[in-house]
């Protein structure tokens, strides 16, 4: 109360009330600064925390959506594997649903009409592991980025074309793509023709979050309706 009285007394003085013209004492300055620093520190730490929380929440929802969308679109296309509408005029490829599998890198090849032109297409999903698996995922340094690519081919009457289809990325910052295949009796299988169900499991990691990046796994079972 007394300091306050002095301070405001001086301020009034500065405003020309003529009561006093004395400056701040060192003690007053120090105490004032300390109070200011404490208040500012609290505000900033709070702001900083908020900022980090926000970034973390955004990164988390980002990775979740990323994984969910990819999983959903893979599941949707694989569920219809073997769908062959064969509209008049289509060059029908040999019948097949899932036609090829690979484990390293993980990839799956199947037939379905994914471009809705009523002719069967061939789709390949491949997991491209990061070259540098230890580095946190950062799109700025491609070696650290794991991804899932998708490519589509059409049947030209004799072969799938183009022979080396352009593969485009449908997900980045993916650390694993697990595909387990089951036959009609529920036993695991690696024979493409006997696959009736696929367990898809995708693990994504937060983008550009350095060592604090968390990973997120989502999996689903897909029954192949056309097998």
């Amino acid at each position, binding site marked *: 109360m007394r300091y306050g009285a002095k301070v405001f007394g001086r301020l009034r003085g500065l405003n020309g009330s003529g009561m006093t013209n004395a400056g701040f004492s060192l003690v007053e300055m120090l105490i004032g600064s300390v109070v200011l620093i404490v208040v500012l520190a609290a505000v900033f730490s*709070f702001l900083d925390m908020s900022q980090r929380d926000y970034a973390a929440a955004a990164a988390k929802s980002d990775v979740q959506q990323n994984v969910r969308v990819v999983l959903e679109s893979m599941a949707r296309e694989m569920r*219809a594997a*073997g769908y*062959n509408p064969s509209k008049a005029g289509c060059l029908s490829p040999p019948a097949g649903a899932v036609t090829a599998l690979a484990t390293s890198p993980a990839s799956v090849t199947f037939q379905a009409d994914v471009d809705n032109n009523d002719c069967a297409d061939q789709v390949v999903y491949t997991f491209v592991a990061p070259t540098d698996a230890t580095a946190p995922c950062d799109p700025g340094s491609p070696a650290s980025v794991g991804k899932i690519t998708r490519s589509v081919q059409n049947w030209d009457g004799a072969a799938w074309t183009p022979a080396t289809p352009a593969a485009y990325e449908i997900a980045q910052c993916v650390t694993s793509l697990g595909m387990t295949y089951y036959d009609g009796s529920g036993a695991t299988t690696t024979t493409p023709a006997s696959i009736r169900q696929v367990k898809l499991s995708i693990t994504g990691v937060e983008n550009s979050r350095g060592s604090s990046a968390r990973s997120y796994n989502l999996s689903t079972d897909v029954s192949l309706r056309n*097998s």
Partner: protein
Amino acid sequence: MNAVARMRSRSSSGQRRTADESGMVVVIALLVLTVLSLWGITLMGLSLSESQIGSNESDLKRAFFAAEAGIHEAMYRMRLVPATSTDEVDTACSTTADPLTVGKQGTPATTWADPNNSNFWYYNPPGCGAWDYSYEGAPATGDGNFFGGTNKANLDSAGRTFRSSGAAHATGGPLANANLTNGAAYTVTVAPVVGYVGGCWQYVDQFGAPLPGSSCVSVAGTPVYKVTSAGQAGSAKKTLSTMIQRMSFNPAPDGALTANTNVNVQSAAAVIDGRNHDCDGNNPSDDGALQYAATSSSGPTGIDINKPENLVCPGGTGDACKGTSSPFPDSIGALLLGYGPSPTPQQQAQIDAMNAYLESIKVPPAQAPTSAFKGIVYIDGNYAKPPDGSEGILIVHHRDPYGQNGCTNPGGCDVANLGNFNEGTFKGVIVADKINKINGNAQIIGSIFGFGSGADGVTVDDVTGTPTIKFSKCILDNLENIANVPFRVVSGTWHEQ
């Protein structure tokens, strides 16, 4: 003291200075509050959009599975026991409902009534507004309802097509899922798949090729139907479609008794009659529908009968009525469909579907029917006898895999036993691994198969009664009406629209 004077008096005292300090606190508090609110609003926006995404996704999933439920419900309802109907002549726009009529092109044949909800299926003749389906102009070859053309299919010659009644759904049908508890709903339409081939509309398969037996004049075979089911949940919609084909039973017996093993008939009175009887087992005819009365996979020598004259067939009696069974297929499904041991890929697809269906209706012996049944019964183990008056298909089958229960056959051992079947009449087809035994006054009208290849075989034995097996083509031809015929999903036709 008036207000102004009060303020002046306060401003000249310490209270005025205290008020200034409070002002700083308010400013800081407001700042902090603003920051907090901004932060909160942003986070709330983030979680709101996340929860919207989540709820959209859940709606889509519910709509998807509702649509799948619709397809299965259509398949279920279409295989209900056929009923007779005169609706074929009624071409008025339906405002109520009719039983679903699934006819063959040009010859409407069979009507499926829903025993629990007669308001399920609507039909619409041409000219009934949005439901109108008609053939328009001369289509391109191969064009049809499945091939993106403007030409739609009709279920019968009256030009009608059918869809499920939404109203019936809303008020709840016989199925638990007819009025889905999770707020999702579905609408189903069914149409036969037709194509314009050879200058006329015909039933075709999913590739546009005429079905076996199809021609411009009449259509044989089993039509393929396209089922489209639209599921809805919240604002989400999913439309699925697939083709289904009614499966047909067509077992091909070699004799009234067809055994994959030896036959031992010890009863002096037992009658095994390979002549063609009517559906009641009367009026035997020597029309040559079958050549033998009894066959064994090991040939005539595998049939031991102590009174040969009781073996009757178009060719006479006794040894002339003993024959060799055709090679047995490996599964009950293949046997019921009438396919041999080396099916084509198309046949194999049907066999797989049939076996999957049979698997789905299999019951343990404890749940075997104890009163007369009509339909398909599949018992996974021993069964004494079907109750008197039962009709349809009886399967008594259990396969132990190699190494289990002392099975030394690499392909597995078929061990379920039918017997002691000593009374009552059964109309239809019996398939049992072992039969030990048929005796008393048991009577079978139709055909019976000993499926297992083990040494135990088929025994017909009695000293007092007259066990009788009578072949009846009439019964075999009507199997589809006696037993509810399942549908199979035609592979390669399921898709999301």
